[in-house]
């Protein structure tokens, strides 16, 4: 990064934090600190919700997904607008009427303390683990590409978040997120323009669309009914709906954003704004990735976007083998460029046969590129057996570093840091709120002054922040834990949602029924996840148990449905039984 990049980076970060602190002056009591005095407008709520959901990894990996897998990931968000409507119509009025600080308070009013504590505990467990990785993941990528010390990157990112979250509470988080989201969107628009503008003169935007489309990168919608496909219309609209309903309706890091609205109407409008903007925004980010794929048809891409792994292998005992693969990859890239230019020329001349031949050549060279890359990855692992060769998260930032001019690099790095800080701030804010309201105030010290709870909220925000920083320092030694964090989320979200939906819609069902149903559905979800391991375990011993333990291999999005619907059904069934009617 040049001096101008540093100036842009520091100025944008100072602007963001300064604005947040200035707008949040006067958070002198619990209501102001945890709910922002209920002064938030729909616009602030909407951007804050979007900024909370979109972590730095979203902006790093989504263009990479567009580059590698095309645009079908956008279907993941199809259920979101539907969930926003349900939350606005049903959940917001209930939370507002009961005047709650956290979503889990409602569960005690509706069921009992046990159910409230259970849900709050699951939230603290899951978000507490995730907070460290929200800081760590972008730091890892920035440090690898910019040569920054990962520990100092973690520390400074975490420290800045702690300072403004502790100083201004929810209001500072939401106001800061508003500016962060504006800078993030500005950065992505600039990046998208630069990618398209970087195409050769003879390649028009329409040509680029055809090139991307013919290579299967503009595969936005797939209506095929296939439970094993991770992203299609059905998994997006059904699984995505349940996931969004659970995340936005019951996860305190999101609920806290709209509890601070001036009125239920402002909260609803903020949610609906998110429902209308999220899909076009995600489409645009994935589209940048698809256009980057076209860009790299004309500019030879590196064999891996993980520069440090490439350098390590070039200096290892396998350098000759790796060099040969790099040369083969470069030659294949030159062939791909020739086919791409031939296709553009054929299109201009309306020569259909020549166009088809060029497309066939392009597809063959893409297939060959993947083969060579696979071999190169194997060599990189031979050179360093701890190497993780997946480079999707590095594609976008590598492009930024290599092809964007001075100043814009600083802006895009600022975008990534902003996205990391905005998600972390919401997490710390929500973790502190839940610990104070659902644990400390409810179970440990119920009769204290408002000022005491305010001080505790600030102390706990610092505590959770320091914990997140410490966890981020050890995160690279706990690689498998990242998967565990994602797994815990997908395993519990459906059950939590089921409990809330029973609370909202089955007004006569009591706490005992819902607790038994929750245990049942949680075991069902765990079985769905582990059935393949159970079968594999017994198969290794030569025993086929498939007749008793059927192997259920479905993508994790469906866990949200499996955790939720059986819970509702079992709770209703138990309520109908004579035993519970007594």
């Amino acid at each position, binding site marked *: 990064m040049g001096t101008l990049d540093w100036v842009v980076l520091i100025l944008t970060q100072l602007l963001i934090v300064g604005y947040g602190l200035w707008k949040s002056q006067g958070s002198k009591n619990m209501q102001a600190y945890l709910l922002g005095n209920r002064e938030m407008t729909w616009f602030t709520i909407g951007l804050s919700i979007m900024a909370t959901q979109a972590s730095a990894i979203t902006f790093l990996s989504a263009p990479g997904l567009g580059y590698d897998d095309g645009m079908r990931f956008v279907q993941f968000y199809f259920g979101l607008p539907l969930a926003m409507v349900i939350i606005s119509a049903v959940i917001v009025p*209930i939370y507002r009427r009961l005047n709650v600080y956290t979503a889990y308070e409602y569960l005690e009013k509706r069921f009992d303390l046990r159910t409230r504590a259970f849900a709050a505990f699951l939230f603290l467990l899951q978000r507490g683990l995730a907070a460290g990785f929200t800081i760590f993941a972008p730091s890892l990528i920035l440090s690898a590409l910019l040569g920054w010390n990962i520990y100092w990157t973690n520390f400074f990112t975490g420290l800045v978040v702690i300072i403004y979250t502790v100083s201004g509470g929810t209001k500072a988080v939401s106001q800061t997120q508003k500016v962060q989201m504006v800078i993030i969107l500005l950065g992505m628009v600039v990046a998208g323009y630069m990618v398209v503008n970087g195409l050769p003169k003879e390649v028009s935007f329409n040509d680029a669309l*055809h090139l991307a489309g013919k290579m299967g990168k503009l595969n*936005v919608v797939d209506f095929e009914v296939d439970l094993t496909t991770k992203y299609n219309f059905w998994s997006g609209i059904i699984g995505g709906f349940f996931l969004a309903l659970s995340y936005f309706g019951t996860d305190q890091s999101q609920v806290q954003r709209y509890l601070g609205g001036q009125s239920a109407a402002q909260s609803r409008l903020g949610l*609906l704004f998110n429902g*209308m903007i999220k899909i076009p925004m995600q489409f645009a980010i994935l589209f940048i990735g698809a256009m980057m794929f076209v860009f790299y048809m004309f500019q030879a891409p590196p064999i891996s976007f993980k520069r440090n792994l490439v350098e390590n292998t070039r200096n290892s005992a396998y350098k000759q083998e790796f060099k040969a693969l790099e040369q083969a990859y470069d030659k294949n890239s030159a062939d791909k460029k020739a086919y791409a230019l031939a296709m553009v020329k054929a299109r201009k001349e309306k020569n259909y046969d020549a166009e088809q031949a060029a497309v066939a050549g392009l597809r063959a060279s893409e297939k060959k590129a993947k083969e060579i890359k696979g071999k190169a990855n194997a060599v990189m692992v031979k050179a360093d057996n701890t190497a993780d060769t997946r480079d999707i998260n590095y594609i976008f930032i590598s492009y930024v570093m290599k092809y964007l001019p001075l100043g814009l690099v600083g802006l895009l790095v600022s975008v990534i840091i902003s996205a990391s800080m905005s998600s972390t701030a919401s997490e710390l804010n929500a973790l502190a709120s839940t610990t104070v309201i659902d644990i400390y105030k409810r179970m440990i010290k119920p009769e204290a002054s408002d000022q005491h709870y305010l001080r505790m909220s600030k102390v706990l925000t610092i505590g959770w922040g320091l914990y997140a920083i410490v966890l981020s320092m050890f995160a690279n030694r706990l690689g498998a834990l990242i998967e565990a964090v994602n797994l815990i989320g997908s395993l519990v979200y459906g059950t939590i949602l089921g409990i809330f939906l029973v609370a909202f819609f089955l007004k006569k069902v009591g706490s005992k029924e819902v607790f038994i149903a929750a245990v049942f559905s949680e075991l069902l979800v765990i079985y769905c996840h582990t059935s393949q391991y159970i079968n594999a375990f017994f198969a290794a011993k030569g025993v086929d148990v498939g007749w008793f333990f059927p192997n259920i291999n479905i993508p994790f999005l469906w866990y949200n449905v499996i955790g939720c619907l059986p819970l509702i059904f079992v709770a209703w069934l138990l309520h109908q039984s004579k035993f519970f009617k007594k």
Partner: protein
Amino acid sequence: MTNQETPQEEQINTEEDEKIGLPSIFKNWTQMYVFVLGELALLICLFYIFTKLFE
């Protein structure tokens, strides 16, 4: 313990909120929700055409 709130109370609060912040182009919240879901349907149709056009 079961929920003590009645659907009637919920309705009263919702009506009060409607007066405060509903955009003037909509008569009630249902119209606003239909608008949001309509946009979703339109986006899916446009995405489908986009996919087929460049396939």
